[in-house]
């Protein structure tokens, strides 16, 4: 399985010389299974670049964790949507009140966006992601609700030999006196359990989190603790705060690596980075 990070920033794109090593595009990752099945995770501004890499008509699946702007803002710039021979499936968190098309159209329609979803050239299908396990080509996908404001999913993806989990926006410590607590009462545990690669929210320092409880994100230490508890082999820090420059992120990574010690490998979530698991 190949996992490539196309956008690692949270909240808002933050390009500039101070963020050049970790990247400024918002959430997007690409997963390719052994059989060539491709799944794109989230459609933040990073999805524009990955879209430009698909030259031959094919099926592409985009799994949205939730519909906050930093996870959908790039969708209108995803080139395959505007090529008629492509087949694009977009999966998102289910709602009991509005279907995914209605919710996405709030953004992808005038006056916020010039092109309507119904006018794209590709064959576009939108789906409420089933809770639990479903298959896309040669990949088994598990969707599960995680703690974040609004209906938000995390995903676990396996090709039968290896597994990765993607929880870009997640606050497992919400309401908990101390992390880690028991596995059965920890949001995200089952998605992350035993994976080869865990891509996880690590937006805040401890001091920042104290001022932002309930905003839906993790301290770096929470990401490490969840990874250790769930037996993940490698943790990739993700959803970097737009106020954090490369040096700050280096420091946060060093802290995470120290906390993890020998229990797991902690790697920096850098735009353009590829992992083979």
């Amino acid at each position, binding site marked *: 399985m190949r996992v490539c990070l196309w956008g690692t920033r949270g909240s808002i794109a933050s390009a500039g010389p101070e963020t050049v090593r970790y990247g400024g595009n918002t959430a997007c990752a690409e997963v390719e299974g052994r059989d060539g099945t491709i799944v794109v995770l989230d459609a933040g501004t990073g999805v524009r670049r990955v879209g430009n890499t698909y030259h031959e008509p094919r099926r592409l699946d985009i799994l949205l964790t939730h519909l906050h702007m930093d996870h959908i803002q790039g969708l209108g710039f995803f080139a395959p949507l505007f090529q008629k021979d492509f087949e694009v499936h977009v999966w998102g968190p289910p709602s009991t009140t509005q279907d995914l098309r209605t919710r996405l159209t709030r953004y992808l329609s005038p006056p916020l966006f010039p092109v309507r979803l119904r006018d794209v050239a590709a064959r576009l299908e939108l789906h409420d992601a089933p809770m639990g396990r479903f298959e896309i080509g040669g990949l088994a996908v598990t969707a599960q609700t995680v703690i974040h404001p609004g*209906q938000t999913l995390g995903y676990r993806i*396996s090709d039968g030999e290896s597994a990765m989990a993607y929880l870009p926006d997640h606050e497992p410590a919400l309401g908990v006196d101390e992390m880690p607590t028991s*596995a059965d009462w920890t949001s995200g545990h089952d998605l992350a359990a035993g*994976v080869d690669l865990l891509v996880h929210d690590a937006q805040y320092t401890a001091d920042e989190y104290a001022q932002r409880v309930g905003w839906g994100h993790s301290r770096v230490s929470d990401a490490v603790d969840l990874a250790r508890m769930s037996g993940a082999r490698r943790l990739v820090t993700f959803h970097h705060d737009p106020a954090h420059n490369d040096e700050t992120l280096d420091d946060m990574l060093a802290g995470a690596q120290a906390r993890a010690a020998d229990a797991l490998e902690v790697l920096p979530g850098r735009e353009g980075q590829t992992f083979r698991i």
Partner: protein
Amino acid sequence: MQGTGWHNPHMAQHDVGLILMRQLASGLDVPMLLADENGDLLFFNEPAEVLLGQRFDDVGELPLDERRAMFAFRDEAGNPVPPDQPPLVVALRERRPVHRRVWMRGFDGTDHEIEVTAFPLLGGGGHLIGGVAMFWVAKKA
């Protein structure tokens, strides 16, 4: 790297709706009990410990049948509430809120006249993930 393949052998976690409800219950001063979709006891908070006469840590999670055996309801006339009629059981079965005044005998054998508000919890996609019972010590008329 050797992976876990299709199967996740470590599945242990409750639905996030239950996790959030437990956290909410832990922070409130209203006695609350949390059950899964089958009625099995998952948690009760500290104010409920006072009513039930035992600490949650000493009781732990309990299947519905064991819970029934450990604390029982009687109606206002003193008759036992049938096993399919406790408020939380009805709330889960019929997916509706239930409010009822009953006598409850806790784990310690003490009787309390209480009002129970029970309601089902519907998770993402509208599926039943569990239910909550809130206990109100009855005020004398």
